[in-house]
């Protein structure tokens, strides 16, 4: 099929050694810590108590509101603790977690065997995907069912299944496509069925020939599913860039892909949807790439959600004390200050970097070389935005388009002055969001005050009316009494 090209991008060293070995299953650790917030949106509301016995796949926390996702028990065992505990988040703030002590039986909750998904109404599919707690496994962790549900009311013509995996080191999607291609394709067919019509394009970077072969073989015979081989260039796996790559169309600024009739799901998400619909199984484990030169052997591990990073590293074997610990890829992942955090639904990789893999360069002034401008896949001018962010000129940064930054890190990667450009943009986005929130609150306050004024006026009027009523009644009574006396007197 005809492909297109997105602008910018960089070519970091692949370091995909972990793709060589097959996926292994992580044995159950002593304890699992399951955070209630593992997705974009409102955190799940706990529905279990301390001391309660839960089965694998049993609901631990239910979704709250329109954009949220439920959380399920990753294995059978006892709830031993509930409270604020460390979880992966760039802020390092604790979040509400449920700790489970596995009983070792790993016994699934009984799920009713579903009918053939291809005969299910599409609303039911979206409902079941929502109930299974499936979120975007590419890293954004947006609740998948929201995308499935919203798509019905829009004109979606193309589903892109993201097998780009452009981040260096990460190979979890690669291994998944090689080993479980049929299951992924089944997931894609379920998504297509839920959409009612349209075609699916599975986009894979050309540095994964085995995955391409496996997926092409699995997709054979389905006319509405095709495999597109995109050139390996970071960030080809980013949503907006991959859409340009495949369709040649750009998602407008501030809009969603659905506005141009495209919807994107990660290959891991397609697999999770397959599990949820075919077997009724909620999302309780995921494939995680454990790599970095501090590890003895880089490879992919299927890990129960809630496994502590320290347990995972111990299982995989550390060669040396890591100089830096990352969750996710080296370009967009977050730095972990300690390994006492659980693997969550969005964890695509855990990287233990050795000393020689970490650069610690001094930041020097911007020389306006413009390399960040050529590297930016979003078509922005990072140096201008950073200059404004540094002086807290958020309005200026916004005018230069900082809200369109996808935080891919290409600019920081090429910057010869080692300026932390992405951090400046993250900072700006946070500040701008805060200002918007405050303006919203100010407007709301004005409405509340107006509502109060109306209420006070109404109450006063009612009071007056009541007083007048009373006075009238009293006057009438007086008159009646006077009439009576008059009648009596003569």
């Amino acid at each position, binding site marked *: 099929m005809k492909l297109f090209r997105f602008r910018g991008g960089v070519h970091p060293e692949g370091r995909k050694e972990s793709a060589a070995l097959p996926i292994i299953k992580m044995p159950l650790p002593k304890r699992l810590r399951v955070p209630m917030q593992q997705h974009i949106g409102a955190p799940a509301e706990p529905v279990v108590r301390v001391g309660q016995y839960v089965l694998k796949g049993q609901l631990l926390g239910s979704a709250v509101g329109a954009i949220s996702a439920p959380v399920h028990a990753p294995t059978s065992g006892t709830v031993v603790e509930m409270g604020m505990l460390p979880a992966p988040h*760039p802020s390092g*703030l604790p979040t509400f977690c449920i700790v489970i002590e596995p009983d070792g039986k790993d016994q699934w909750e009984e799920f009713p065997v579903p009918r053939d998904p291809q005969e299910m109404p599409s609303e039911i599919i979206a409902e079941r995907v929502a109930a299974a707690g499936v979120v975007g496994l590419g890293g954004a962790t947006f609740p998948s069912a929201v995308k499935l549900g919203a798509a019905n009311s829009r004109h979606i013509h193309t589903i892109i299944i993201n097998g780009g995996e452009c981040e260096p080191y990460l190979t979890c999607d690669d291994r998944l496509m090689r080993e479980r291609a049929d299951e992924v394709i089944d997931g894609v067919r379920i998504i297509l069925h839920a959409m009612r019509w349209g075609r699916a394009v599975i986009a894979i970077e050309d540095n994964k020939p085995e995955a391409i072969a496996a997926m092409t073989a699995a997709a054979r015979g389905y006319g509405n599913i095709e495999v597109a081989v995109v050139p390996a260039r970071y960030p080809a796996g980013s949503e907006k860039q991959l859409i340009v790559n495949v369709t040649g169309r750009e998602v407008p600024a501030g809009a969603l892909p659905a506005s141009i009739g495209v919807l994107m799901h990660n290959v891991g998400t397609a697999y999770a949807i397959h599990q949820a619909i075919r077997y009724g199984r909620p999302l309780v484990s995921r494939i995680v790439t454990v790599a970095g030169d501090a590890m003895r052997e880089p490879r992919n591990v299927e890990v129960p959600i809630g496994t502590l990073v320290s347990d995972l590293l111990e299982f995989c074997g550390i060669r040396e004390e890591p100089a830096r610990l990352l969750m996710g890829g080296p370009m967009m992942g977050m730095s972990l200050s300690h390994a006492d955090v659980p693997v969550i639904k969005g964890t695509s990789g855990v990287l233990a970097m050795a000393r020689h893999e970490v650069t610690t360069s001094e930041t020097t002034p911007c020389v306006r070389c413009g390399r960040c401008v050529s590297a930016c896949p979003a078509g922005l001018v990072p140096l201008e935005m950073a200059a404004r962010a*540094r002086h807290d000129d958020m309005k200026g940064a916004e005018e230069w388009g900082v809200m369109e930054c996808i935080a891919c890190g290409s600019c920081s990667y090429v910057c010869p002055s080692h*300026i932390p450009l992405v951090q400046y943009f*993250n900072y700006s986005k*946070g500040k701008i969001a805060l200002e918007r929130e405050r303006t919203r609150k100010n407007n709301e306050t004005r409405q509340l*005050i107006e509502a109060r004024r109306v209420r006070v006026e109404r109450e006063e009027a009612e009071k007056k009316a009541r007083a007048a009523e009373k006075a009238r009644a009293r006057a009438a009574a007086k008159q009646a009494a006077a009439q009576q006396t008059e009648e009596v007197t003569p």
Partner: protein
Amino acid sequence: MEHITLLIGIVVITALGLLLGLGLGVASQKLHVEGDPLVDELKAMLPGAQCGQCGFAGCGPAAEALARGEAVITLCPPGGRTLAARLAERLGVKVDLSAIKDKGPQLAAIAEESCIGCTKCFKVCPTDAIIGAPKQIHSVLTQACTGCGACVDVCPTDALALQGVLVSMRTWSWPKPLTEAA
């Protein structure tokens, strides 16, 4: 003959000018509009809680003082830095906002063990952010509270206090990079 025609023209135009000028003068006197549009605009920008923390009798007088240039643009604590920035932009004043100590958003909180259910606080609350009933413990709706502090002053048992909003994962945002070059 010729110069009479010319004279008529001059006289007519002059008379017309005088008449219209007079009309305009009279109209400006008769149809004079009270109030400064700038004051109204500023008033619309202020929260309108009439909380009085600025030292003026309410948002209206505060807006007037701002328009006259007799008040500092950072006068409104509930409006915070956001409002100060907007006011500075509207009035064309340059201020170093980073120098202002923004205490961050504040919310009223009720110490339930001291609350006697006197209902005084929710009667003064400009946004109806306190709920309760006589002899029942009152509670603050954090979504509606502006942190104006009106309730703190009326509480007979000092059960009300303003508290900074705790940073949670939902309100956290990235800090500014520490490096100086860029």
